[in-house]
């Protein structure tokens, strides 16, 4: 920091004025070599992130014979047989439904209790209470599983949807509280105050003014909560029954057999990742703003 002195900043000088209007456009100072390097680097990066996913997709469209044949890496006759096996014979469609309901219900329930809590914790600066909720993010899930398993198996609830949804709320709730808190931290108070002047109660102002204004934040929080709940593996591994298995557990059980049916396994993996990727494609902005919530305000 000692490099910069106020004198060097040259505020208000003529050459800086356009830069202040469009802050991200700047004079081209990079060399052509740098530009070439940048393009090459970007291509390599994109390839490195996408190639494995493409490989999974390709393998899911091959017969097991073709997967074993190195000469058919890229050129092969595509088949949907793996998907037919997975969705038809192995009943994966019911696991898709399970995964969806568990993720959906845990997200909605977490929103109902999490959004007002985040509002209160932000407006009243309840940092210590917030820390208690965020502890859920830090604690290793295994340390909760044994007591949960004990209590829920005594109530003969293990294997039911209720327990799964509760355990997935443990994933969704801290995420929602964290994102919504940073959303309310940056939301101005004026509109709420105006609503109060207009005669609404505090709670009325929250329900009729603040909540409708929070739609963007709620969308961000619920998309991320849904994704992380959909992806969760550990809780369902212990707490789900044969009928309530979620997709990640179903995929894991695939490799329990002596020899792995690679085509089927890859088809199953595609089935679990595709919905999430489609959501990600359409809600990229929300996901990014959720992942970076609270990261840049310091």
């Amino acid at each position, binding site marked *: 920091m000692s490099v910069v002195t106020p004198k060097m900043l040259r505020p208000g000088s003529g050459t800086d004025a356009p830069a202040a209007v469009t802050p*991200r456009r700047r004079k081209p100072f990079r060399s052509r070599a740098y530009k070439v390097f940048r393009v090459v680097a970007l291509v390599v990066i*994109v390839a490195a992130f996408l190639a494995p996913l493409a490989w999974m997709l390709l393998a899911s469209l091959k017969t097991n014979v073709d997967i074993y044949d190195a000469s058919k890496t890229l050129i092969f006759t595509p088949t949907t047989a793996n998907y037919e096996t997975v969705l038809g014979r192995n009943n994966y469609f019911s696991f898709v439904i399970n995964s969806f309901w568990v993720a959906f219900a845990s997200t909605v329930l977490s929103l109902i209790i999490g959004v007002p809590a985040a509002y209160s914790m932000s407006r009243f600066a*309840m940092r210590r209470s917030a820390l208690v909720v965020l502890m859920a993010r830090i604690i290793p899930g295994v340390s*909760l599983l044994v007591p949960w398993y004990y209590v829920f198996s005594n109530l003969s609830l293990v294997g039911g949807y209720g327990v799964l949804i509760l355990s997935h709320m443990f994933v969704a709730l801290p995420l929602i509280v964290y994102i919504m808190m940073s959303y309310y931290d940056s939301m101005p108070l004026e509109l709420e105050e105006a609503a109060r002047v207009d005669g609404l109660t505090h*709670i009325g102002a929250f329900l009729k003014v603040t909540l409708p204004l929070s739609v963007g934040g709620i969308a961000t929080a619920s998309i991320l909560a849904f994704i992380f709940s959909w992806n969760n593996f550990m809780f369902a591994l212990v707490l789900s029954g044969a009928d309530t298995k979620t997709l990640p557990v179903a995929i894991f059980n695939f490799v329990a057999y002596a020899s792995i049916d690679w085509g089927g396994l890859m088809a199953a993996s595609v089935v679990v990742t595709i919905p999430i990727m489609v959501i990600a494609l359409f809600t990229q902005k929300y996901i990014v703003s959720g992942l970076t919530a609270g990261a840049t305000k310091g």
Partner: protein
Amino acid sequence: MAVTTMPPKRKPQQQNAWKAYSDWANNHRKWLFAAPAMIFVAILIIFPLGWTMYLSLTDSSGSVRAESEFIGFANYLEVLSDGERFWPAVARTFIFTSVALLVQMVLGMCIALLLWRPFKGEKWVRVAILLPLVATPVAVGMMWRLIFDPNIGFANQMLGLLGIPAQPWLSGQHTALPTVIFIDIWQWTPMVVIILLAGLTSLSEEPDEAARIDGANAWQRFRFITVPLLMPTIIVAVLLRSIDALKTFDLLYATKGRGGGSFHEVETLNIYAYGLSFDYNDYGLSSTVLILFFLIIIAAMWVLTRRRKDVQ
């Protein structure tokens, strides 16, 4: 203070009761709003955590319903003197987290810098980077199991083309840990990129511009302007990534199964504790490992958040 306009047609008694209720709710809204979430957390987290602490002082095993005896700190003595499973698991947790974190931060910073200035096709590059991050970890594990399969995997096919002998990757006793670290880097570097990129775009251009006019080269500007200004964001990224890396479960269990493989080659503390509980039903010992693990995480978080305050 509470100026509540009432519908005029309500009977006075009803009105009073409603107003009293509404006033009470409004005056207590702070806790009324926070209570459901707090109670949920208390019941599902704090109480089980207390129970885990209690279990760590007993010899509970076999069935969760079986009688157990209070044995004081015997479990802690046993675990802390266990050089076969516990300490290697501590070491693996530490190696996994620190190597993955270090590579992710360096690589993430490089990619974030590349993406910082606008360019054509920016949107598509960002989507590509988002995909590994949202992919289901178990599916990611299975995908890499196929790619790293010693016989039919793409990784060894590529090595073959380059004339390098085939590697055992995930199935090798000494190659498994580096391989899972590689997979973790593939999946979570995007998280670091996204956080750092948000930090970079929120930076003011002026200090950087001024240093450039002053003749500072790219490295100097990065080292002395960008990094110090970005430090709070960098620490958030380190904090979030280290919490998740320490607790990594899905990837390790999906690629190596119980006990972190037949030689426990990827057995971290989380995998070890899970195995003790649900594969061996030794709840007392498992709880002890978990409490120690929890203390390690808290210590790491404490150090990092203190560092964050120093920076601010």
